[in-house]
């Protein structure tokens, strides 16, 4: 009996893996089997590779991978009923949680969001994937199967996008764009091409495709490509704050020894103006707000300041400077001034651009007002 060398065994194992057998168990089974056959048939002066190829050819009709696929098929079939049952249960739970959650929401009862999130998770993580797997196992063309898989993917992405959006988790927008992208460029063409070929489904396919296009279009309409634009009425508040600050600044003493007393407040004021200018630049593209709030050209895009502050070294330095100046200011005061004097990076990063502007303007007004009161007190 011929004895196979280690190199020959490695060669066989490599070849089995290369030909698509991925289950380790099956790899080892086939390896042993092939070795047994070769050890019986090989003679000393035979060509090993040639005989190996001949042997392995008897194992399949078209390619070796068939064995792996058949194995997976048989294993899947065993779980088929369990999967089907789980799908139905998950679907029922999901539907019930959607209905109950909606009822709770209408009635303002506690627990509505928990129920709705549970419903979305059940739908996206359990029901849809199982549905796709079971549908794909059924008979059908590969086109239909591709449409089923991409359709399930769209449903999963959409429900995850909704979940992320309502939970304010990062990445919701990426999920929404993925939903629209997969729906428009993968699912819709796949569905259309799979259905249009059979004569009896042609009309249904066209009608459903039109509905799908409309649905994707409606979803896309709801998506903001740019951050939300501040409404003119809200923008007016920013302008009013600016006017107040300017007005109060005029009333500070502007000469000699008197001016020196208010030097710190003037410096804080200047730092605030610089930070505000960074915010305004990021929101509008200009360094300062234009003179007129009703300017139709003015677009104030109300992004969260966190989205541009953290990467901006100048802004970080300015805010550090402001923090130091405020610490200095607090040391000169004995009274408790509350939170209005506690502005730092984390605090600012809680706000959208308009809110951060407002926060800084309020700080300026507070300090300038305190200076003016001091002045009035000395005059009296």
């Amino acid at each position, binding site marked *: 009996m011929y004895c196979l060398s*280690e190199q020959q*065994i*490695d060669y066989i*194992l490599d070849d089995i893996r290369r030909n698509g057998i991925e*289950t380790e*168990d*099956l790899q*080892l*089974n*086939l*390896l*042993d*089997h092939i*070795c*047994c*056959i070769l050890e019986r048939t090989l003679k000393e002066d035979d060509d090993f590779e040639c005989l190996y190829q001949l042997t392995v050819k*008897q*194992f*399949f*009709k078209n390619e070796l991978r*068939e*064995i792996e696929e*058949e*194995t997976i*098929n*048989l*294993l899947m*079939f*065993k779980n088929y009923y369990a999967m089907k049952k789980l799908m139905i249960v998950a679907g029922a739970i999901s539907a019930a949680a959607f209905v109950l959650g909606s009822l709770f929401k209408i009635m303002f009862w506690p627990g509505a969001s928990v129920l709705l999130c549970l419903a979305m998770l059940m739908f996206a993580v359990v029901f849809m994937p199982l549905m796709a797997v079971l549908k794909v196992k059924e008979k059908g063309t590969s086109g239909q199967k591709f449409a089923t898989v991409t359709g399930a993917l769209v449903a999963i992405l959409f429900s995850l996008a909704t979940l992320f959006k309502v939970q304010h988790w990062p990445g919701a927008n990426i999920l929404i764009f993925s939903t629209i992208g997969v729906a428009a460029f993968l699912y819709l063409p796949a569905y259309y091409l799979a259905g249009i070929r059979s004569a009896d489904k042609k009309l249904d396919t066209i009608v459903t495709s039109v509905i799908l296009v409309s649905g994707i279009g409606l979803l896309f309409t709801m998506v903001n490509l740019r951050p939300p634009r501040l409404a003119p009425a809200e923008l007016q508040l920013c302008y009013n704050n600016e006017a107040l600050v300017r007005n109060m600044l005029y009333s500070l003493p502007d000469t000699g020894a008197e001016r020196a007393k208010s030097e710190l407040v003037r410096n804080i004021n200047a730092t605030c103006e610089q930070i505000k200018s960074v915010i305004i630049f990021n929101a509008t593209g200009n360094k300062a707000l234009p003179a007129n709030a009703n300017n139709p050209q003015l677009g104030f895009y109300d992004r969260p300041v966190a989205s541009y502050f953290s990467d901006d070294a100048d802004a970080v330095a300015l805010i550090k400077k402001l923090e130091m100046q405020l610490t200095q200011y607090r040391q000169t005061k004995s009274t408790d001034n509350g939170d209005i004097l506690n502005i730092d990076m984390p605090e600012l990063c809680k706000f959208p651009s308009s809110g951060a502007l407002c926060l800084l303007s309020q700080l300026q007004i507070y300090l300038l007002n305190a200076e003016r009161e001091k002045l009035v007190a000395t005059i009296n």
Partner: protein
Amino acid sequence: MIFSTELLKGTLKTIVLKLLADNSKMYGYEITQRVKELTGDKIQITEGALYPTLHALEAEGLLTTEVEYMGKRVRKYYSLNESGKARSKEKVSELAEFIETMTFLLDLKKKTLNVLPQ
């Protein structure tokens, strides 16, 4: 004559279970060889059908496995556990009944009075 795979498809599980019931433990190649021997080459189990079946039977919890390391090779021995033995009996008697019915249906034996409905 070699029987077609179409014919063997429904009986492969039974064949494997019966062989394992008669032999304490067997590995894949041994099973194919034994079937060949016993049937005088009339039935040849293909590797493409045998291994998926073995894995399915294992997943159904009918088999216990034992691994023997031989240098770089690993040989996996299969044997029946208790539920496997019970299933083997069921499957064999089911197939026997099936064969009887087919014999009758295809009129391979002279019909006798007690099988023929009145």
